[in-house]
C-alpha cells in the first residue's frame, strides 16, 4: 500500500501545478471567463503541449496511457484554479467514450486530434426529464438505410458551444427507461437539423441545449453496439465522477487555504479573528472534511479501474456522497467564516462554492449516490466481515 506518488506522477503534479500557478490565478480566470469563448484557447494549447490532453489515451493514438491517479492529479490542480476549459467534456467524457466504445477507425481519426488540441468534443447525455438517470433516454435514433436519424432534445450539454463534434446518447430500442436499447452517435455540430441554444451555468461555464430534428448520422459515426452502449456510458460516467471528486478536492484545498489565510489576517474587535476559539474549531472541522474527502477521492481513484461493476459503483458512489456532503460543509463554512466579503463576486471563495455545488449536481448528487450505494448493499465491507466470521466459526466448530 503506497500513497506516495511515483517519480512520473510527481513530475506531472509539478508541471501542472506550475502552469496553474503561473497562468491561472483568480484574476486570470476572470479575464478568461469574461471573453469569448469563455475560457482560454491559449491555455488549451498549453495543456496539449504538456501532454495533459493525451493523458488517458493509449500510446498507439499518441497518448500516455495514464490511469485514474494521473487524471486525479490533473483534475485536483485544475480544481485549485477553477479552470474553465472543456477538459472534462473533451478528454474525460468524450475521450472516455471513444477509448472504451469507439472502433479502430474512430480512435485513429479522433484521438490524435484531441491530443493535439485540435478537436474539442462534448457529451450530450442529459434530457430535461432524465435527472441523474443516464439510461432515461427519450431522444430517438431510427435506422434509415446506412443512416441513423436522430430526433429529440438534449439538455445541459457542457461545452457544447465550442465542441466540433458531440457524442449523443439516443434510444434505438426498448422503453424510455430501459438500460438496453441505447446507442451513442458522433454528431457534427454543423449537421443539418441540429440547433444549439447556448446558456451560462451558475458557476461561470457555458453549455448548450441541443435540438435534433431528424439529424442524419452516418453508420460510421455510430460508436459501438447500437443497443448496448449503456455499460460504456455508465463506466465513463464513473470515471467522470472520480475526476470530478478530484476537481472538488482541489477546490476544497483552496477554500480551506483561503479561509485559513483570512482568519490569520482579518482583524475584528481589535484582534485577528483566527484567535477566536469558535472560529478555530470551525477551521478544524473544515480540515477534517478536507482530509476525509481526500481519502475518499483516493479510494475512488483506486477502485474506478475495477472491472467488477458492483465494486466499482459502490466505491465511486461512496466517494461522490462524501464529496457532496463536504461541498456543503466546506462551502457553507468558508463563506460564513469570511462574512459578507465571501458573498461577493469580486472575491474568490464564492466562485469555489458555486463550483463545488455544481459538481455535486453533475452525474448525481450526494442523495442520488447514497440511494445507489444503499441499493448496492453499502460498501460491502460488512458482507466480507460477516462471511469471514461465519467461515471462521464454521471451521472452529468443525475442528472441535
Amino acid at each position: 500500500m503506497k500513497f506516495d506518488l511515483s517519480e512520473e506522477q510527481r513530475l506531472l503534479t509539478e508541471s501542472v501545478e506550475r502552469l496553474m500557478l503561473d497562468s491561472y490565478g483568480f484574476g486570470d480566470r476572470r479575464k478568461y471567463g469574461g471573453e469569448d469563448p469563455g475560457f482560454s484557447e491559449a491555455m488549451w494549447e498549453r495543456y496539449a503541449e504538456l501532454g495533459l490532453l493525451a493523458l488517458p489515451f493509449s500510446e498507439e493514438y499518441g497518448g500516455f496511457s495514464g490511469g485514474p491517479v494521473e487524471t486525479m492529479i490533473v483534475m485536483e490542480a485544475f480544481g485549485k484554479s477553477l479552470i474553465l476549459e472543456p477538459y472534462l467534456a473533451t478528454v474525460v467524457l468524450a475521450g472516455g467514450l471513444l477509448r472504451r466504445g469507439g472502433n479502430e477507425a474512430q480512435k485513429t481519426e479522433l484521438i490524435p486530434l484531441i491530443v493535439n488540441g485540435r478537436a474539442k468534443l462534448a457529451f450530450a447525455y442529459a434530457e430535461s426529464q432524465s435527472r441523474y438517470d443516464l439510461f432515461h433516454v427519450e431522444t430517438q435514433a431510427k435506422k434509415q438505410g446506412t443512416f441513423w436519424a436522430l430526433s429529440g432534445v438534449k439538455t445541459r450539454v457542457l461545452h457544447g458551444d465550442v465542441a466540433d463534434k458531440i457524442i449523443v446518447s439516443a434510444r434505438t430500442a426498448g422503453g424510455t427507461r430501459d438500460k438496453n436499447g441505447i446507442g451513442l452517435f458522433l454528431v457534427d455540430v454543423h449537421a443539418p437539423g441540429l440547433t444549439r441554444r447556448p446558456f451560462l451555468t451558475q458557476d461561470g461555464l457555458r453549455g448548450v441545449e441541443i435540438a435534433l430534428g431528424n439529424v442524419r448520422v452516418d453508420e460510421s459515426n455510430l460508436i459501438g453496439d447500437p443497443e448496448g452502449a449503456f455499460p460504456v456510458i455508465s463506466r465513463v460516467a464513473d470515471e467522470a465522477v472520480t475526476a470530478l471528486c478530484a476537481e472538488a478536492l482541489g477546490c476544497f484545498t483552496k477554500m480551506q487555504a483561503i479561509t485559513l489565510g483570512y482568519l490569520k489576517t482579518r482583524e475584528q474587535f481589535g484582534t485577528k479573528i483566527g484567535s477566536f476559539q469558535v472560529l478555530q474549531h470551525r477551521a478544524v472541522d473544515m480540515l477534517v472534511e478536507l482530509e476525509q474527502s481526500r481519502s475518499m477521492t483516493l479510494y475512488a481513484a483506486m477502485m474506478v479501474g475495477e472491472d467488477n461493476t458492483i465494486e466499482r459503483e459502490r466505491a465511486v458512489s461512496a466517494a461522490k456522497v462524501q464529496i457532496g456532503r463536504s461541498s456543503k460543509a466546506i462551502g457553507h463554512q468558508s463563506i460564513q467564516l469570511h462574512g459578507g466579503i465571501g458573498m461577493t463576486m469580486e472575491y474568490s471563495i464564492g466562485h469555489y462554492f458555486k463550483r463545488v455545488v455544481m459538481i455535486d449536481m453533475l452525474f448525481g448528487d450526494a442523495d442520488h449516490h447514497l440511494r445507489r450505494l444503499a441499493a448496492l448493499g453499502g460498501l460491502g465491507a460488512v458482507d466480507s466481515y460477516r462471511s469471514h466470521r461465519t467461515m471462521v466459526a464454521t471451521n472452529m466448530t468443525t475442528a472441535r
Partner: protein
Amino acid sequence: MDLMFTEGDRTFREEVRKFLYDSTIPEIRRKLAEGLKLSKEEIAAGARSLYKKGVPTWPQEYGGTGWTLVQQYIFEEEVRAFPALVKFGSGEDLVGPVIYTFGNLAQKQYYLPRIANATDWWCQGFSEPGAGSDLAALKTRAVRHGDHYVVDGQKTWTSSAHYADWIFCLVRTNLDVKKQQGISFLLIDIKSPGVTVRPIHLIDGGHEVSEVFFDNVHVPVENLVGEENKGWGYAKYLLSNERFGDAGVGVSKERMWRALELAAQTYVGGERLADQPSFREKVAELDVQLKALEITQLRAIANASKQQGAQDPASSILKLRGSEVEQAAAELLMAVMGPNALPYIPDEELGSRNEPPVLPRWAAEIAPTYFYSRAASIYSGSSEIQKNIIAKAILGL
C-alpha cells in the same frame, strides 16, 4: 393558557384577506407569485396599496394602524401567502420606529408621512468595510461646522441603495471616548453632493447591495436624530426590532411550499419525488423545525405584547434559528431542482424566456436563492455575534 388564536384574531384574518383581495394590484400579485422582480415604481404602488389602512406596524398617531403584535403577525402572514408582500426600503421597519421614538416633532412631521405614502425610499448605512461584525468600530466621521455636519467615509452592504432617496447612517462624532459612546444617528439625503453609490455584485448574480461613499457631504444639523453621541442606543433599539422580526417563518414556508410544488412535477427514478418516503421524511423534518420556530415566534410576540422591551430567551433565538431554517429550506429547494438548477439566467432575460418549458418560471431563481441564503446567517448580526450576545445576556456566561 389558551394557545389558540382568539375569535377576534380569526375575524381579523378574514378582514385582512378581504382587504388584500380588494386593494392589491393584480399585475403585482402575478409577478410576485411568479418570482419576478418588480420595478421601484411597482414596489411603491404595491406599498401604497398595503398602507391604505395605515402603516401596519406603527402606532395610530404616526399614521399607523395601531394593530397588536398578533394582528401584525397575521397581516404579514396573509400578505406573504397572498402574495402581496413588497418592502419599500427600510422606512417602515427600521428608520420609522427610530424617528417616532427618538426624533423631534419636526422630524416626525416631515419624514413619517413620506414613508407612509411611499414617497421616500430609505436605506440603512450601518456596516463599514473595516468593521464587519464589530459594528461599533465604524469610522465614517461627521464633523460639525456651524449648522451642518461634514460627513466623510464609507458604508457597505447597503441594501437597495441604488433605489434609495434617503440613507440613515451611524457616524462617528467623537473620537475621544469608548467606541460606542461617540456615535450619532444622521438622516442623509442620498442625492446630496459627495454621495456616491457603487454596486456590489453578489454570488447569486443579483445587485441588491452597494457601497456608499461620503466625500465632504454637508448634512444639516436638524437631520440629527436625538442627541449627538447617543446614536448607539438608537441603533441597538433598531437592531432589536430587526432581529425580532427576522425569524423569516414566512420566507421559509414559501420555500417549502415551492419545493413541494416542484416535487409534485419531478420524477426521480421513474417515480414522483413528492411520493417518495425518504423525500417526504426530509420535508417533514423541516416542517417540524419550521413549526417549532413559528411557535417560538408566537411566544415571543405574546411575551413582547405583555411587557414591551423585555427580552425573553425565545425572542433571542429567532434570528439565529430563523436563518438556519431559511437556509435549510433553500437547500431543500435546490435538492428538488437537482441538475436543472445548472443554467444561469440573468435577471434581465428572465421575463423574455419561457424555457425550460416543463418548469415553472421561478425555477431559474432557485440556485441564486440557495446561494443568497448563505447571507442569512451573516447579515443583521452574524450567527456568531448572536451566540455571543445570547451567551452573555441570557446565559450570563
